[in-house]
């Protein structure tokens, strides 16, 4: 102990610094602004909203129980959503899983026009005029895509535009049953 306090303690600053460097280096490849969802591995929040196409109809998540389904949060004001739209249309064509949209704080007319113009990948679209349901789902930046399994548990969430690579590597294995549990 004497010896340590004597000479080795002068190496302490260098040692602490080395540890700090390690943290900072790893930090370069992390994404501090991406907030993972607290719902992963937990039951999906409730969803009950009028649909985009028909105000009188209600879309409710209780209708989807028993099989996996996808929820895609989008809006016409969301620039990044355009990026993934083509991918969504392709995924819808593959009929791998029902896909439902959540139109977040949008204008009904503009949204319908966009779907008419660029294609409608959704089995149905819920219209969240005030954003309350989005908050219940922990949405903070469109586009976001949730995969809910047959038990109603959220098993995957994609923050940001969805591309085919991510779809094939993260989502499909969970849908087909090749992988279990939440995606990493």
């Amino acid at each position, binding site marked *: 102990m004497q010896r340590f306090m004597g000479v080795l303690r002068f190496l302490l600053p260098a040692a602490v610094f080395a540890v700090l460097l390690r943290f900072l280096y790893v930090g370069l490849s992390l994404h501090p602004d991406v*907030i993972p969802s*607290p719902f992963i591995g937990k039951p999906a929040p409730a969803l009950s909203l009028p649909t985009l196409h028909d105000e009188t109809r209600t879309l409710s998540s209780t209708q989807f129980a028993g099989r996996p389904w996808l929820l895609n949060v989008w809006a016409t004001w969301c*620039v990044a959503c355009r990026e993934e739209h083509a991918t969504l249309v392709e995924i819808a064509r593959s009929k791998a899983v029902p896909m439902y949209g959540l139109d977040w704080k949008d204008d009904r007319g503009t949204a319908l026009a966009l779907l008419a113009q660029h294609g409608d990948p959704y089995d149905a679209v819920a219209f969240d005029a005030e954003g309350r349901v989005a*908050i219940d789902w922990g949405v*903070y*930046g469109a586009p976001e895509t949730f995969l809910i399994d047959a038990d109603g548990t959220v098993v995957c969430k994609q923050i940001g535009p969805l591309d085919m690579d991510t779809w094939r590597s993260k989502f499909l294995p969970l849908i087909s049953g090749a992988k279990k549990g939440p995606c990493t």
Partner: protein
Amino acid sequence: MRWLPLIFLLLTAVAVQAIENVAPFDDPAMQERYEHLVKELRCLVCQNESIADSNADLAADLRREVREMMIAGKTDAEIKAFMVDRYGEWILFRPRLLRQTWLLWFAPGILLLIGTIVAVRVVSQRARLYTDDPGDDPTGEPNA
């Protein structure tokens, strides 16, 4: 590359501050409680601001939620729990005392303790050296 829009938003969003469009609470105590609460919640869009300061739509929506929950009689703890359930611990600017934040909250005490121990050791060592040999020059006039 896809984060460019987000970064752009982060850099420019500070330009406009969030001024409430809704009238304040009639009860000043409620208003003060509201102001404190919204300063403790972090905006997920303009991530370096509280929802009080951020002009993002989501921040306005979250402020509305806080307001409505307060009117419904929820406590601060319940309102915070509501937010944490949906967005995770990240949304609280004041980290709660969890196992993973022990270091954060005990750090002041620990560091002060270490500092005090070091200081006491140095002072007693130097005091011993002084009494062994006070030296010739008189105790100096305090000039800077």
